[in-house]
């Protein structure tokens, strides 16, 4: 009895060679414990060594292997073939990013936007080593922990229609990381992030489509982070207008 197979359709693009991306079909073995990454590795090892794609940990913690699978942004290491079998699986590079080659996208835009929200602990004073470590209660950790789970996989960017339409929008992950630091009890940097967070490229661009949180493989809920920052920024605005002489 022949072992089961299924079809993998991959969007190919070879710079300097192809005018535009085109789908290429591969017939791959179906194994019920395989993920799409296994299928891609099979193609590269056995069928077509020219296929290019990113991957690393193969267990959903590195954030490298984001692709579109049947139109949905997924980690290829987390999407099981059995979710799709026996229908064909369409694999395309992550939406809303330019294609370098095949499934490899250019992430320069994200890499350039991320540092603008200063995603690190900012303190008014430097704490000397002799004072020992910072301490946090479980409640203080809980305040930001969810937003710290981001693996920078950028599935949320592929899901966000605002990011597709507005090139200057910093995007869900960047804003979630801004929230992660704003809510960290060790951090004093909220005001210094506001230029971006509450600026023209920040939270006000977001229309709460919510697909970012749906796409996130780590449950970060960037939509929630953005909503909370909208409220906080709006209340800041009211405070500044009503009490302009207040401490700021």
């Amino acid at each position, binding site marked *: 009895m022949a072992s089961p197979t299924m079809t993998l359709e991959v969007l190919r693009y070879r710079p300097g060679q192809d005018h535009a991306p085109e789908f290429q079909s591969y017939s791959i073995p179906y194994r019920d414990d395989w993920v799409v990454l296994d299928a891609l590795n099979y193609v590269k090892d056995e069928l077509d060594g020219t296929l290019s794609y990113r991957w690393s940990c193969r267990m959903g913690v590195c954030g490298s292997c984001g692709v579109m699978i049947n139109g949905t942004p997924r980690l290829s290491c987390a999407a099981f073939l059995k979710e799709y079998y026996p229908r064909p699986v369409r694999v395309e590079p992550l939406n809303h990013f330019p294609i370098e080659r095949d499934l490899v996208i250019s992430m320069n835009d994200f890499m350039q936007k991320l540092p603008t929200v200063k995603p690190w602990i900012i303190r008014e004073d430097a704490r000397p080593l002799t004072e020992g470590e910072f301490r946090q209660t479980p409640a203080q950790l809980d305040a930001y922990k969810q937003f710290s789970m981001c693996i920078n996989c950028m599935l949320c960017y592929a899901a966000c*229609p605002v990011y597709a*339409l507005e090139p200057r929008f910093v995007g869900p992950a960047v804003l979630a990381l801004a929230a992660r630091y704003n809510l960290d009890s060790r951090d004093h940097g909220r005001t210094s992030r506001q230029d971006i967070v*509450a*600026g023209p490229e920040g939270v*006000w*661009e977001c*229309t709460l489509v919510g697909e970012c949180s749906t796409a996130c493989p780590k449950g970060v809920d960037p939509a929630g982070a953005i909503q909370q920052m909208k409220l906080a920024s*709006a209340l800041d605005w009211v405070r500044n207008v009503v009490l302009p002489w207040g401490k700021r």
Partner: protein
Amino acid sequence: MHRSVEPLWWLLFAIGGTLTAFLTPIHILIGGIGLAAGWARDAFAYDHIRALVSHPLARLYLFVLISLSLLHWAHRFRYTLAEALHVKPSWLPVSLACYGAAVLGTILAAVFLIRL
């Protein structure tokens, strides 16, 4: 940050959205569907409604409801238009039309309710 008026429009949208989420359905059910279906005809009599609406608290309530419904619509529709037409939300004609209409409605509501 406070140079932009964006936070104000968003706040009005958010308060308006919350208010209308709680109030608009029952208003439509009674004043729209109930009226046409003939529920409680006496309740819709001119004298009764006039008396009800004339109360200062009722006027304030209606002013807030009308104004915030329009301001909620304006902000949301501005962004919806921008996303549907692939223009920036900051494009002036769209902003002006939306917030302008809402502000006009707010002024009219104030005038009509004071002059009732």
